[in-house]
């Protein structure tokens, strides 16, 4: 028992040492507890680097309306209990916004954040139904949900087929997890509306073995194939598709397909593959060019310079750009210091924000936290991703029916 007490004292002392003292009042604090070590490793490093580089750019330019931003970064290993600890720590340090980039962790934190009124940014992950701002007042997906991504992909296919999808066969090859199954209702509903024949082919998680599934897909001879996975399963899907004779320019993916995946399979063999894009790719975007000039060139970058402009780097930049725009609007309207409640109102007054071309026009209101659900389809040309469409949003009625239906379930659970 002595040992227990001694350990406790030691832990308490260690933890007290671990929490840095409160900085000056003007500093705006953002907490990011990401998964650097377990499941989301395929994107976390680039994503976090983008976030920190953007914050460095902001601070070099004098902060948001003179308020410097402090971004706290910690690893969660994708474990909900570590995410909760990080969340409580961020809360005690006065964070106005937190980001977890992990669906299990952000799901575990949602009830607490709603209770405490702290804003959670869940761009491209987390609960899709959190787009309903009336039920989830402080959760901000601020990005096209998986449902909206499904509608955009179908919209593109519809345009390619000259608006006629009658009797076309569309196959969805998905990871057998809640994430993989999430878009199925959208594809089924659209198949009723547009008349295509839809079939779903699940492969077991984590997806490094998919050959049995793709044999079935080949038998089906789909006109279009959509892959729905993330991380290590994605290059396997693309490789199996090629191996089974699926035309590569008729293969479309959910947002989680990056140049890394294409290089694994073979950059030139995968030419023509399509993906949904919610954030512009590459260094040509003015905002990324500015980071390169004002942060990277001065040696203040948070990681290897060759990652700048990569898919997940740009997504990281986009998250912080959305936050900064919300904070700017809040400080303009209500003045400092920035509180979570002010930031929430600021984020909800974002209108047609594009972050200098990095994002589709984003408009968040107190009802719509999705922000319009716009995205585009891009194709791999062997070296980079080339946009094939403008920023589009399609069939948002179906998306919103699902959002309302699921958020009503959440509401009815007595919270």
């Amino acid at each position, binding site marked *: 028992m002595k040992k227990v007490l001694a350990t406790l004292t030691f*832990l308490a002392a260690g933890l007290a040492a671990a929490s840095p003292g409160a900085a000056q009042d003007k500093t705006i604090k953002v907490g990011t507890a990401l998964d650097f070590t377990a499941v989301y490793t395929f994107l976390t490093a680039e994503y976090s680097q983008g976030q920190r580089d953007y914050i460095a750019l902001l601070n070099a330019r004098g902060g948001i309306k003179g308020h410097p931003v402090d971004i706290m*970064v*910690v*690893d969660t290993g994708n474990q909900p*209990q*570590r995410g*909760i600890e990080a969340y409580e720590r961020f809360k005690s340090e006065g964070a106005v916004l937190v980001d977890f980039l992990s669906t299990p962790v952000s*799901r575990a934190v949602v009830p607490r954040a709603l209770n405490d009124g702290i804003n959670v940014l869940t761009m491209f992950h987390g609960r899709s139904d959190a787009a309903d701002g009336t039920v989830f007042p402080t959760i901000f997906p601020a990005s096209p949900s998986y449902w909206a991504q499904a509608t955009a992909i179908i919209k593109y296919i519809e345009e390619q087929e000259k608006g006629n999808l009658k009797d076309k066969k569309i196959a969805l090859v998905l990871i057998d997890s809640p994430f993989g199954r999430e878009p199925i209702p959208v594809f089924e509903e659209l198949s009723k509306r547009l008349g295509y024949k839809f079939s779903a082919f699940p492969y077991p998680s984590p997806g490094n073995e998919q050959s049995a599934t793709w044999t079935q897909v080949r038998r089906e001879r789909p006109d279009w194939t959509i892959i729905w996975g993330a991380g290590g399963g994605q290059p396997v899907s693309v490789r199996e598709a090629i191996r089974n004779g699926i035309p590569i320019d008729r293969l479309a993916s959910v947002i989680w397909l990056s140049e890394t995946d294409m290089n694994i399979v073979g950059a030139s063999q995968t030419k023509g593959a399509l993906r949904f894009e919610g954030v512009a790719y590459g260094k040509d975007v003015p905002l990324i060019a500015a980071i390169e000039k004002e942060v990277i060139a001065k040696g203040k970058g948070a990681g290897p310079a060759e990652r700048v402009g990569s898919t997940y780097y740009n997504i990281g930049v986009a998250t912080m750009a959305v936050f900064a725009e919300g904070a700017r609007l809040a400080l303009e309207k209500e003045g400092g210091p920035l509180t979570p409640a002010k930031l929430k109102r600021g984020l909800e007054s974002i209108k047609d924000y594009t972050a200098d071309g990095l994002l589709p026009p984003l408009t968040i209101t107190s009802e719509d936290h999705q922000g319009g659900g716009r995205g585009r389809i891009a194709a791999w040309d062997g070296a980079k991703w080339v946009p094939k469409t403008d920023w589009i949003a399609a069939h948002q009625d179906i998306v919103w029916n699902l959002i309302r239906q699921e958020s009503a379930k959440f509401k009815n659970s007595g*919270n």
Partner: protein
Amino acid sequence: MFYRLAGVRHTSYAADRALWPVPVDRWQIRALLALAVGAPFLLPDLYLTSYLLPWLVWSTAALGLNLLMGWAGQIHLGYAAVMAIGAYGAIHAVRLGIPFELALLGSGLLSAAIGLVFGFAALRVKGLYLAISTLAMQYLVDWIISHVPAISGGSQATLQAPAFRFLGVPVAGDWSRYYVALAVCVLVTSFLLNVGRTSFGRALAAVREKDFAAAVIGVNAFYFKLMAFWCSSFLGGVSGAVLAFCYYRAVTPEQFNLDVSIQAVAMVIVGGMGSVIGSYLGAALVLLAPIVLNNLVGAFARAAALPLHQEVLSHIPLILYGVLIVGFLLFEPLGLAKVYANIRNYFLVWPFRHARH
């Protein structure tokens, strides 16, 4: 000096069978209980809600698994699945309007019933083979939960824990959640402290040492193996429900995946098989060490302004954590409980070391 053994006489059976014959141990227990009850007043909310509370709940779970692994000598690699059944069972029950107390018992019974089915495997196989058959339970339960929307709660696969009352008091704040977890933890702990003194506990020990030798001396190995699975699954279900209601406040399938089962087994092995205090220490090490190490390494890197990338920085605690576990097991293969016992034995006769036999 600290442990005054003078005057501790075993003059009656009751005194001989006392849990803590030495007065100092009793005082320690009282002091710890007082600290546990007073913790909300003493600790900042951060430490109460994200260190002490999960530690208590995980200790409860580790105790349940320890009953099976330490006392009865059976291995279980699907304990997270048992906890998941309890968590989902309790949340669905409370949503249907059943009072929380009954839902807690019901979730235990449900887990016990399903756990018992997989316990039948233990009648035929042992050791690694049993590990594999309990692993099957983990995968089956995971699969069923995530594929049946009626259980998992639809496409978002998350169920919120509804508001609930415990013994007539609404449980809403951090403090009341902590006290519910503490109450369950104390109950389960006192059950396990006493198991060793009952015929049930002695029968489990007999089965653990050699099941057919136990049969020879008249212990029904069949019955007691199943009882061990039943009790352990019951405790697992209850702790899963407490975890869902008091800590996570929501359940998703990922909260109870294979990693969690492995962590639970690690808690028992690193803590010490068949030891109550070992379950607490093991839970503390496996659950809290990664968090504490992460914070310490982060603080050190900031203070020393180490030019390290975040990716490297995030992996250092993992290395340290691995070193810690291997180190503890090399240093004392019987677990943290044995480390504690060694220290206690040393002070038992200190400063008269020659008195030790």
